[in-house]
């Protein structure tokens, strides 16, 4: 969001700020549900390849657990780097 837009937001009355923060909350909920669905899809695709039984075997379950943990750690690391770059973009440098 660039600064002129934020200036416009400051001039909005209280009820609009509430509306804006509700919108942000809703987008974050949608975003985390999407990330969840993508994580499930990726770990399923990478870990489950045989369909002779209808339940996960031990090996598949271990694979899914590790995949999910790795993905979450990865995602947090990317989030930190991404935030640094976003801040850096606002400074002269």
């Amino acid at each position, binding site marked *: 969001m660039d600064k002129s837009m934020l200036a416009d937001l400051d001039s909005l009355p209280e009820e609009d700020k*509430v509306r804006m923060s*509700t919108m942000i909350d*809703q987008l974050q*909920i*949608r975003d*985390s*549900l*999407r990330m*969840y*669905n*993508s*994580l*499930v*899809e990726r*770990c*399923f*695709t990478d*870990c*489950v*390849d045989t*369909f*002779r*039984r*209808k*339940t*996960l075997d031990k090996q*598949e*379950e271990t694979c*899914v*657990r590790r995949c*999910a*943990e790795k993905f*979450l750690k990865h995602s947090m690391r990317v989030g930190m780097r991404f935030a640094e770059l976003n801040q850096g973009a606002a400074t002269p440098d």
Partner: protein
Amino acid sequence: MAASKPPSALEKEQIFGMAEKEMEYRVELFNKLTQTCFSKCVENRYKESELNMGENSCIDRCVSKYWQVNNLVGQLLGNNQGPM
């Protein structure tokens, strides 16, 4: 609960918003499951237009396993039955 005072306009927006997100989540889960199990189970030369027995049982197991992975990941993230 039905006897409690009616929700405010803002509360209503939040109820509608959450219901919408929840539905979008389920639709997306279904769509990803459908696409993934089609890729895993159905041969993509399309020699016939019927699903054969092998494909059908593969699909059933694939849905079942996908569901388990969904629940397993939900547990890891700290709730019991998926994200909601």
